[in-house]
């Protein structure tokens, strides 16, 4: 679009574009800063979107760009698909959607590196460092692409959520990664060798698949965060290839964000990143270690009895898990909480960092049901409060309240920080059955003297409680 500009301005165009890129960077950084508080977060996202818009528009004035058919078609198609996906998705399916977007982002970065390489008639004119970054861009972008779609498949249930693995898979994965890096070295020396190029591409795509496949369903929040980080780094690499600071900076910001979230998720599960990647732990059917539910007895409760317990309590804490969202029970829950508050009961929600399927997922699901965010307390805030809590309602959560994590050093979840619901005067667990959770470990909380079980579908149980509360 540079032809629309006055001739005299053209010599200044490249610098002007760079200055405007700097402004776009400012919007990204400001936007991320505003995302630090729920009150300003929406504005922050709009700031970032504005930065993106500025970045795209100014790029169209780049004198290298002379044909627009492909660009217009691409933006229309991509924009339509993106908009439809964003409008249609259910909040419970947010992790899947983020995985998909992530995959497309990574794929785009790989394609940019590839396209830039292929548009040069003679690749030998490329400097060794731009060849290295091209290779790395293709590598990271491609593995983000396939890895994200495998993660999507696992979350969606197309691919088993169990850890699919076989002996030697880790060795193959590490070997392939080293192989790709060595090949990128060869590629730098001889960029005209097509075979090397294709092997790098193929192997990178394959690594994305084989490195996510063995990771168990319970670890998906970590994987999504990590892939998010990769997609940022891939964008940065694409920036190195085309020599664009806007891409380098934005990609680095995203890479850092993903890494921080990955770290938070690992800490919340007391696992190291290496253990998540190579450990092949946990699945969605929970076929894990000896659940001897045999001769232990549990106390059951009814809706009417429970209504009296919570109706006359002074403080109730609700601990929601993904099971709540699966049962679509958040709205009924909100009604129950509303009735309790009307009666003067103090109601709070305690959210474990890995509740849900991605970092902060449960908060979004409750926000959808209009639960105000200042009632949602994270683990460090809620744990000191359990001692003064009359009743804790554990709904659809299991492993995150399992005291085994504190008491049994032999347990796979030992050391994982949990919500100390057992410190409350009474706990009520809403559950379909006594089956173990994601990690496949039996939960002694169920058999504790202070605990009562309320068996059944979370939504139906809450509806019953909601009605029973009218008569208390």
């Amino acid at each position, binding site marked *: 679009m540079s032809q629309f500009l006055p001739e005299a301005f053209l010599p200044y165009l490249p610098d002007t574009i760079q200055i405007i890129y700097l402004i776009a960077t400012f919007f*990204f950084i400001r*936007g*991320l800063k505003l*995302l*630090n*508080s*729920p009150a300003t*977060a929406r504005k*922050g996202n709009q700031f*970032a979107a504005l930065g*993106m818009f500025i970045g*795209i528009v100014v*790029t*169209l004035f*780049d004198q*290298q*760009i*002379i*044909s*627009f058919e492909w*660009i217009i078609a*691409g*933006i229309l198609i991509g*924009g339509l*698909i*993106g908009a439809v*996906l*964003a*409008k249609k998705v259910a909040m419970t399916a*947010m992790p899947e959607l983020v995985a998909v*977007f992530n995959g*497309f*982002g990574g794929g*785009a970065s790989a*394609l*940019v590196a590839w*396209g830039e390489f*292929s548009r040069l008639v003679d690749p030998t004119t490329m400097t060794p*460092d731009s060849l290295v970054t091209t290779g790395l861009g293709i590598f990271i972008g491609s593995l983000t692409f396939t890895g994200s779609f495998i993660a999507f498949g696992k979350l969606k249930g197309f691919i088993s959520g169990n850890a699919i693995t076989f002996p030697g898979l880790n060795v193959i994965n590490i070997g392939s990664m080293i192989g790709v890096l060595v090949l990128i070295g060869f590629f730098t020396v001889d960029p005209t060798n097509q075979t090397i190029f294709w092997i790098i591409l193929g192997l990178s795509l394959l690594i994305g698949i084989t490195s996510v496949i063995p990771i168990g369903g319970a670890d998906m929040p970590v994987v999504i*965060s990590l892939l*998010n980080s990769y997609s940022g780094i891939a*964008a940065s690499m*694409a920036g190195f290839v085309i020599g664009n600071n*806007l891409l*380098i900076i*934005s990609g680095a*910001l995203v*890479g*850092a*964000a*993903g890494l921080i*979230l990955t770290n*938070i998720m690992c800490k919340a599960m007391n696992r190291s990143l290496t253990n998540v990647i190579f450990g092949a732990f946990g699945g969605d059917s929970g076929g894990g270690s000896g659940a001897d539910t045999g001769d232990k007895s549990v106390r059951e409760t009814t809706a009417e009895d429970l209504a009296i317990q919570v109706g006359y309590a002074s403080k109730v804490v609700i601990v929601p898990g993904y099971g709540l969202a699966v049962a679509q029970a958040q709205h009924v829950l909100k009604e129950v909480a509303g009735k309790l508050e009307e009666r003067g009961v103090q109601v709070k929600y305690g*959210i474990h960092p890995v509740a849900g399927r991605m970092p*902060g997922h449960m908060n*979004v699901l409750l*926000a959808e049901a209009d639960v*105000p*965010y200042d009632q949602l307390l*994270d683990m460090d805030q809620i744990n000191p409060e359990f001692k003064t809590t009359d009743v804790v309602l554990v709904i659809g959560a299991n492993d995150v309240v399992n005291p085994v994590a504190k008491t049994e050093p032999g347990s796979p979840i030992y050391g994982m920080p949990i919500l100390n619901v057992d410190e409350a005067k009474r706990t009520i667990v809403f559950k379909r059955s006594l089956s173990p959770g994601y990690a496949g470990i039996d939960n002694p909380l169920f058999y504790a003297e202070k605990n009562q079980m309320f068996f059944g579908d979370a939504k139906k149980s809450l509806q019953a409680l909601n009605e029973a509360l009218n008569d208390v």
Partner: protein
Amino acid sequence: MSALIFSLFIFVLACFIGFELISKVPPTLHTPLMSGANAISGITIVGALIVAGHSGTDSQISQIIGFVAIVFATINVVGGFMVTDRMLEMFKKKEDEK
């Protein structure tokens, strides 16, 4: 100083800014943060525009690659920002309720 080294400085400094910016985000906002950051990583669309809009090559291959890259990146950008907005719209404080 070569272009690569210069870029590397920028990359590393930007990583530090990223860590500083994001390490204090409360857990409540982790999902929107991730999807918002994800949308920002769609900035690679700028590279895709250059690859697709460039001509002067004998082959159309790079233009087609660029086209696919634009589609992918636009899905990422448009979808990412829109869905983040949709989520953040739902976050309300207690006082806002009527």
